[in-house]
C-alpha cells in the first residue's frame, strides 16, 4: 500500500476532507463529519478497489496470484482490509482534528463500527462495478449511476421532497440510506431498530455480494489474458 502510494493518496484525500471540516462552523461538525466519512467510505472505497484491480490486471500480478496457493476469498478480503485501513486512517485524522479544534459529541467507536460495515459493503460494490467496466472511465460511470440510483432519492427524502410513507419505507432498502443511518447513529437520537436494521441489512447484502465477487474474480483475471 505504501509503495503504490495508496495510503499516501488516502492521506491527500483526508487533507481535503480536513480543509472542508476546518471551514465548517462548530455547530455543523456533527453533520459534516459523518457526511465526509460517508463520501470516504463509499466513493473513495469504490475508486480504490477499481484502481487496485486495474493496476493488478495491467501488471499481470492478478494472474500470477490465480496460480498460487492462495484462496480467492483471501485475495478479496486482503483488498477489503486495505481499503478499510485507509478509511480508518481518515476517521482517526478527522476525529482527532475535530476533537482538538472543534467541539465533537460523536462516538468514535460508533463511527468506527459504521465505517467498517459501510467500507465492507462498498468495497464489494467496487469489485462488481470494476468487473463490469472495461476501464477506469467506465468504472466512474458505473459509480455515478450507483449514486444517482441510491443517493438522490435519499437526499430528496432528507430535504422533504418525498413524503409518501411507503416510498420512505422502500428507501430503507437503499444501501446509501443504511450508511447514513449508521454514521448518524454516532450522535444518538435515532431509533434502535433503524440502526440494527441498517447494520444487519448491509452485512447481509455484503454476504450476497461476496458470493458474486468470489464467483467472478477468475473471469475478470482471465479476461484478455493468455497463460
Amino acid at each position: 500500500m505504501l509503495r503504490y502510494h495508496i495510503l499516501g493518496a488516502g492521506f491527500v484525500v483526508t487533507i481535503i476532507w480536513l480543509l472542508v471540516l476546518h471551514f465548517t462552523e462548530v455547530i455543523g461538525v456533527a453533520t459534516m463529519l459523518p457526511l465526509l466519512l460517508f463520501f470516504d467510505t463509499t466513493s473513495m472505497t469504490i475508486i480504490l478497489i477499481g484502481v487496485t484491480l486495474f493496476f493488478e490486471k495491467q501488471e499481470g500480478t492478478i494472474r500470477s496470484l490465480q496460480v498460487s496457493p492462495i484462496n480467492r476469498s483471501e485475495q478479496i478480503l486482503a483488498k477489503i482490509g486495505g481499503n478499510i485501513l485507509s478509511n480508518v486512517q481518515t476517521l482517526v485524522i478527522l476525529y482527532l482534528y475535530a476533537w482538538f479544534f472543534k467541539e465533537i459529541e460523536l462516538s468514535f467507536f460508533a463511527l468506527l463500527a459504521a465505517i467498517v460495515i459501510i467500507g465492507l459493503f462498498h468495497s464489494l460494490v467496487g469489485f462488481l462495478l470494476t468487473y463490469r467496466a472495461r476501464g477506469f472511465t467506465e468504472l466512474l460511470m458505473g459509480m455515478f449511476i450507483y449514486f444517482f440510483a441510491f443517493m438522490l432519492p435519499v437526499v430528496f427524502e432528507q430535504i422533504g421532497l418525498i413524503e409518501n410513507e411507503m416510498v420512505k419505507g422502500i428507501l430503507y432498502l437503499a444501501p446509501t440510506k443504511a450508511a447514513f443511518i449508521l454514521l448518524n447513529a454516532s450522535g444518538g437520537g435515532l431509533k434502535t431498530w433503524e440502526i440494527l436494521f441498517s447494520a444487519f441489512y448491509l452485512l447481509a447484502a455484503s454476504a450476497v455480494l461476496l458470493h458474486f465477487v468470489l464467483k467472478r474474480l477468475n473471469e475478470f483475471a482471465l479476461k484478455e489474458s493468455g497463460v
Partner: protein
Amino acid sequence: MFEVTGLTFRYPRNREDTIRGLDFTIQDGEIFGLLGPSGVGKSTTQKIMVKLLPDFGGEVTYLGKPLQSYGKDFYQKIGVGFEMPVHFSKLTAAENLAFFKKLYKSHADTDALLKRVGLFEDRGKKVNEFSKGMKIRLNFVRALLNKPTVLFLDEPTIGLDPKNARIIKDMIREFKEDGGTVLLTTHLMNDVDELCDRVAFMADGKVSEIDTPKNLKLKHGKRLVEVEYQKGEAVQQDSFDLDRLGESDAFLDIVRNKRIITIHSKETSLDDIFIKVTGVEIRG
C-alpha cells in the same frame, strides 16, 4: 502424470467449442510440447490444466485423480511461466520474489536462480526499470521459486537474446533431468526440436498429430538425398530416393565421376510439419 480425455470447452459468450475433444497424456519426467496456430486452444488447454477454467467437458486427471478434486494446494507443486510480465512494477525483483515466496511451503534458492539467469546484480532494481528480456527471465525464476515438480511454460524464450535463451533452455533441460515434467507452448520450432520429448500439434480444437519430433520428421519427411555437383562450368542439383540409393545408377555415377559440392539427406523440419498439419504458417 496428466491424462486428458475427451476434453471440450466453450467460452460463455461463444457459440462454438474452442476445444473439441482433446486427448493426450503427459508422462512423468517428460517435456511435452503443445503446438498450434494462435486461437486454436493451446492457452485454453493450459488454463484448464492449471485449474483456471473449471467448467470443462471430458476428463483431466493429475496423478490419477480428477483435477477438480484438488484444492489450492495443487499449486504448491506447480510452476506457471507466463509469456507476459507478472510482477509488481514498483517493487524490486527481490521484493517480488519474496512476496510470492511467502505463498508457498517450499522455496527454491532464488539468489542462485537469479545468478543463473543473470539478474542477481539487478535484484535491487524496481521491475519497471527492467527491459523486456529481464522481465521474461524474472518470470522464469518466479515459475521455479516453489521448487515445482510440473512446469507450465508459455513461450519462455520469446524476446530473449540467443545467450539468455540458451540459459533458459539449459535450465528447462536440467529441470527435466532432475525429474520434473514440463508442458511447453511455443512458436519457436528450434526450441521444440531441442527440448521436447513429444509434441502435440493442435488444429481445430483437437490434437491432429502427437509423437516424438524425430518420428514426426520421419513420418512427414520426403526421405530424399539432395546432391549438388559440378557439371562442366555449371553447378547441377539432383535428388534421389534415399531408400533405393544403392540401386540408383545416376547417383552412383555422380559419386564416382563428379565433383560433389554438397550432399544432404533431405529432412523435413518441424516448421514444415507445423504448416502441413495445422495449415497455418508460423509467424514471429
